[in-house]
């Protein structure tokens, strides 16, 4: 099964709220650490290497040219 690129989350606003809420009390470092764990958890759930590789490509290729320009 290819990577799903069409809307697949039944309640987009509700999910987005839950995502933001889950990190509301975290500082940037904690949020980064949590995001790393979240990626691993979701990747394991998907499991299919072809789908994961496609997701990696989509994430990388959708980088905006001005990303990272603010420095950190």
């Amino acid at each position, binding site marked *: 099964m290819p990577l799903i690129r069409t809307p697949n989350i039944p309640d987009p606003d509700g999910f987005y709220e839950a995502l933001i809420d889950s990190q509301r009390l975290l500082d940037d470092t904690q949020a*980064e*650490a949590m995001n*790393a764990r979240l*990626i*691993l*958890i979701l990747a*394991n759930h998907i499991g299919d290497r072809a789908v994961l590789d496609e997701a990696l490509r989509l994430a990388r290729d959708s980088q905006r040219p001005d990303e990272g320009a603010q420095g950190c």
Partner: protein
Amino acid sequence: MHATYRYPEYAWRRSPEQDGRTARHPVVIVGAGPIGLTAALDCARRGIPSVVLDDNNTVSVGSRAVCYAKRPLEILDRLGCGARLVDKGVRWNVGKVFFRDDLVYAFDLLPQPHHKMPAMINLQQYYLEETLVDACVDSGLVDLRWKHKVVGLRQDDTGVVLRVDTPDGPFALQADWVIACDGANSDVRSMVGAQFTGKYFQDRFLIADVVMKAEFPAERWFWFDPPFHRGQSVLLHKECDNVWRIDFQLGWDADPEVERQPERVIPRIRAMLGDAVDFDLEWVSIYQFACRRIDRFRYGRVLFAGDAAHQVSPFGARGANTGIQDVDNLVWKLELVLDGAAPVALLDSYDAERSVAADDNLLNSTRSTDFITPKNRASRRFRDAVLALAAHAPFARPLINSGRLSTPTPYRDSALNTPDAEPFDGDMRPGTNCVDAPVVRAGQPGWLLEAIGDGFTVLVFGPAPDGCDGAPPACGAVRARVLVVGRDLVDAQGVLAQRYDARPGTTYLIRPDQHVAARWRSFDRAAVETALRRCLAA
């Protein structure tokens, strides 16, 4: 400094060539480390006299290569050293991984039952070398020449001339073939103009042998970011004689000269062990890891093996273990070429097969090093995320990479293999090393690997089919010995048939290095001889 081990000093002697007695040696081996000595012993086993040159006159200083895996132990057992090494070594099966203060994961090598050799032992490299030196001397076919340093090499189609320096000055030594086992900084490699490329890791490690009476079990303990060594990793291994091996990751900025000083090392160990443990520091070394390999394992009449051919990071114990397997692959081929029983082209399969193994080791070693030494902030985040999740979610545990322990790399695509024409289950595909199994021979319990020995073997699962007796299958001067299961050896427990997915008539052609060359569901002499020819590159 060494309280637990007395280093032998091997006598230097003038070479006969220095007194005008020149000879042409079939095999000259450069380097009396574990790989060179194993090569000499395998040559002796096959009746080939060899000369071994080493620029030193003792064994490895410090524990260095400390973990030996099942397949190399099987090879050393074939060469008559297995029992002594296994008796002296420390067996272990459990590995634990700690992250900060917590145990996050424990693995058990869960050694399969019904193998002669254990999954893994720890043993200081000097014990291995001393055992091999003794066995070389006992063989009567190995001419060990200490304090002999190779300083020059030239070769043509007919042979090699080495220029060798000694305390009594230089001389020339003639060889049909040279096996270069002179380590990661191989001079011979430079002399033939070989490339040795790969990557250096921007990290340094302190490696210490510590003598202590400690209650730690014989397990492999690996810490990421422990409280006693913040931000870095630490590895603890038990060796024999109450010696413990501790590796501290130091980071790239560490100054090797400063860090090797006892006044720097001892507080690090004290912080780890606490104040209650008495210990003595026996040996210290600072390493920078590299993952590199030679471009070709064969340069004319010079064959490279061990670290001279490939260098890996120590995590995973892939250095000496794979070097011993290089030798296992090489020496039978060299024997057949020396005898004129196989074309020189057979030696090109050494390069092909061991290149695949080297690449596999380099890949695993590089992946481990990338996990242990993250290259940037993002990869450290993922590394720490894996470790944090491992305590809570089983899925994260296989992602932890504190070293993937050495296992043999099968030669799946080797030109020497005859591909299966009939369906088989299980792992014993052509190109794979034969897995051991208990058998009964002449009424005595024994092992398959002892029974197949070190020549070509046709293993036929009985009852003995028509045509398997009489003259053995042959290709020119090379003959394959037929062993019938149920007659020449008995599969009393059924393990052999199960591991080889065997039915009556199932036939395996096994190489002298105990790898499967071909297999069939019935014995067919013509098919065996065709496969044998293919296996000789003839």
